[in-house]
């Protein structure tokens, strides 16, 4: 395959802006324009966004409870992740096996995922089975069993997974980077926990997390597919109505990623070093966020259209994969990239990346780059609305990030109005090329710890 699909670690959320969005001035209208997003409020007061589509006999529902892994107590790291693995392990009168067989009989899909700021739920069902499917979801949310046998099985799975992660250079580089970028903050801790913290988590901890976080005041819901508003209203009450009205979340402080230069090398016996580099960035609500988002596309978010791909891969053949991303977590935003290059040349890859970042900070992108980025980002926005499930995902993140129900219609204008002066100013504001935090896993040659300049 020509280009690595960007692997999105579960620790990071989908910006709803990811590489798929685009729009060319000349592309008529985003499908989004034609899409009718309804706000449905249940008789019991639970709100959901709905896009009706009766072309296929299926329903996609996505929801999120605000309060993800950042709610893990310091000595219970990995708790949210553990909960996410327990949600299909039995509920009500169904033990784990009975629950899984029920899912299969209904041809229903249900999974949960803990990200930094939110606990995500993702459900797909056939219209023909919708009553039974929603009922099973209700059971999973309201009456999870946390049977000892299942709790221990999932614990063993998480521990096995951690053992693999320990030997995965990408994972090790990423965890080390988070630790350096978010010292003394929940974001600096591993979402999947540690061997010791997972060993210490009890069934009661799992129950407590559910009670604290799975509440209606921090819940956002999107539904797409073969269901109408009249049916959805009462269904929302049935599925989510039994949850507590109020969550009880621990306050999370705003993180202040320290300035580098910092370079940490973790030795691992592999032929290719994996490096992660990055720095602080702007929050989602910052006036310059959208400009920074376009800038990231030009730096390393835009695949073969990006500067890093051009300089590192296309011109020099130093890597198969090199890319960057903006992660505007709710309590601290970062700009992060990664590259993988054989040990002998990884220092060269990093030098090329730093010099390209420096050049961009000083000169900014050129007019053609900005035009190309706008053209892709606005034109490809439509591609994110291809399936019920992908539409639901887009709308869910718009809700989580509180961008407004009209965001889909406004978004391309926000991109179009960014000027060359704007992006040059933001390149100076954002990029701190001599202040990067870098982690390298492998046996890099001559990539030693970074000296403090001056």
């Amino acid at each position: 395959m020509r280009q690595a699909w960007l692997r999105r670690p579960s620790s990071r959320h989908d910006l709803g802006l990811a590489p798929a969005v685009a729009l060319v001035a000349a592309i008529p209208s985003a499908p989004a324009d034609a899409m009718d997003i309804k706000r449905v409020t249940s008789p019991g007061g639970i709100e959901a966004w709905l896009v009706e589509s009766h072309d296929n006999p299926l329903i996609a529902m996505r929801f999120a409870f605000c309060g993800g892994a950042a709610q893990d107590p310091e000595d219970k790291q990995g708790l949210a992740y553990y909960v996410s693995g327990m949600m299909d392990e039995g509920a009500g009168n169904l033990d784990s096996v009975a629950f899984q067989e029920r899912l299969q009989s209904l041809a229903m899909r249900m999974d949960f995922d803990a990200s930094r700021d939110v606990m995500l739920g993702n459900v797909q069902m056939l219209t023909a089975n919708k009553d039974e499917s929603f009922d099973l979801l209700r059971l999973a949310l309201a009456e999870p069993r946390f049977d000892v046998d299942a709790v221990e099985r999932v614990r063993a799975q998480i521990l096995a997974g951690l053992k693999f992660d320990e030997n995965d250079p990408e994972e090790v580089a990423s965890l080390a980077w988070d630790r350096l970028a978010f010292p003394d903050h929940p974001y600096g801790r591993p979402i999947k926990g540690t061997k010791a913290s997972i060993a210490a988590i009890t069934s009661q901890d799992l129950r407590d997390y559910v009670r604290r976080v799975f509440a209606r005041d921090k819940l956002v819901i999107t539904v797409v597919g073969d269901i109408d508003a009249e049916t959805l209203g009462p269904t929302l009450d049935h599925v989510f109505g039994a949850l507590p009205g109020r969550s009880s979340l621990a306050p999370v402080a705003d993180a202040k990623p320290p300035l580098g230069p910092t370079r940490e090398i973790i030795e691992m016996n592999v032929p290719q070093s994996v490096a992660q580099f990055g720095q602080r960035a702007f929050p989602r609500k910052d006036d310059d966020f959208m400009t920074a988002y376009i800038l990231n596309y030009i730096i390393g978010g835009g695949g073969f259209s990006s500067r890093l791909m051009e300089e590192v891969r296309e011109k020099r053949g130093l890597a198969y994969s090199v890319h960057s991303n903006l992660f505007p977590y709710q309590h601290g935003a970062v700009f992060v990239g990664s590259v993988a290059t054989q040990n002998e040349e990884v220092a060269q890859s990093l030098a090329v990346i730093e010099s390209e970042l420096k050049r961009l900070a000083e000169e900014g992108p050129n007019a053609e780059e900005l035009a190309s980025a706008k053209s892709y980002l606005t034109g490809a926005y439509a591609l994110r609305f291809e399936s019920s499930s992908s539409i639901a995902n887009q709308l869910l993140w718009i809700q989580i990030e509180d961008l407004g129900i009209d965001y889909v219609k406004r978004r391309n204008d926000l991109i179009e109005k960014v000027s060359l002066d704007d992006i040059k100013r933001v390149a100076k504001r954002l990029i701190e090329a001599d202040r990067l935090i870098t982690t390298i896993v492998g046996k890099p040659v001559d990539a030693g710890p970074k000296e403090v300049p001056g």
Partner: protein
Amino acid sequence: MVMSMFDQLVATLDPRAPLILAGFGVASMAFAVARDSASASPRVVEFTLTNGLEVLVIPDHRAPVVTQMIWYKVGAADEPRGSSGIAHFLEHLMFKGTDAILPGQFSKIVAKNGGEDNAFTNHDVTAYFQRVAKDRLPTVMAMEADRMANLRLSEEDVTTERKVILEERRSRVDNDPSSILQEQMMAALYTKHPYGIPIIGWAHEVSALDREDALSFYKRFYAPNNALLVIAGDVEPDEVRRLADETFGKLPPHGAMNGRSRPQEPEHSAPMRVELEDARAGRLTVQRYYLAPSYASAAPGEAEALDLLMRIAASGPVSRLYKRLVIEQKTAASAGGWYSDSGLDAGRIAFYAIGAEKISPAELEQAIDGVIAELRDCGVTQAELDRARSAYLAEFVYTSDSQSRMARHYGWRLATGMTVADVEAWPERLKQVTVENIRDVARKYLLEKNSVTGILVPAPDRTSRGEQPVHAPVPGRS
């Protein structure tokens, strides 16, 4: 269940799709259920241009976007001996340029048109695709037709891209012990058939590939009469026919393509074992492969029975293997398996288990063997068959929700010799499978002599690597 914890590992263990985009899943017959005739969407339409290019249109008018895929009926198993990796190398080079497209501009032009593009290589097929707004279809179709005949390569392009591919190989294989073991298991399963050669190529052979290798492979296999065009999305078949005639239709066909004859695998007479001890293995993992036919090579009904056998035996947390090893015996942290059904010449069956703590390789292997023996001796129950089959059939509804997955599914099947009628009759054939059919294929194909067992054992770390960084971080200026 935290199967997701093992997603990446399982993707590595699964040799079906080594160079395929993550997120698309693997080709599976599950997608092949024809749309219900009551559905609003029209069925697929197929036709052939005068130069031999096959075209398939899958209308889906829900969003104003289209997916274009061009499938070449050539893959890594068609490479000249000693030139492993050339099919995949050429796939990369196809993005370099033509007379009309300046070097390195192909993907940039697609992006400027608000589109996304990529490509993948398999043992049997090589495919290129774009997703664009529907009014950009003429642009990307013209570009795709252009590079079918007019590829231009400089020595420098080839030299740089060879470095990129060696980095890709390091990322995918050399950096990962489970991939290294999987590569060796495939070589042991296919001693004679080129499915035993890695798609990305052996490193020493890739290092020697040059511009001439790429161009001669291109000239031999890239032609309208050796390709299939699939267009899915907001289009009408007539419009696609007109556009295809104006673009691909102008290209001359090659002479006879001579079919695809690969050395076939002989009967095996002894089981094989591959063991790898590695400090970075993580956890003990035992895998078992068996030679089996694919949908394309099987006798009527056998592939459908194998397909359902493996759904029941090893797919997900309700499977036999997971229930026995993970839930009941607690010998494994996770376990599963699959039927690789899409090969042109052969398929395979695979089982894997990730050991629980303190389980020995022999104990874990014995546990897998127990489940396999039970399948061979007693088959499956009617209740298991009914539940697995209905869930399997329902998967098509989910697949048909995505035009790009539909394009991929039909493309895969048609490019490996099936017809639209075959694809659409599949649900009916699946419905005819009985527990007796399943028992018969289990007895016929789960044979020890046709197997390869792979064992990945964590070794004590003899390197200096520890949890501590060897260099302390340098604090920045405050």
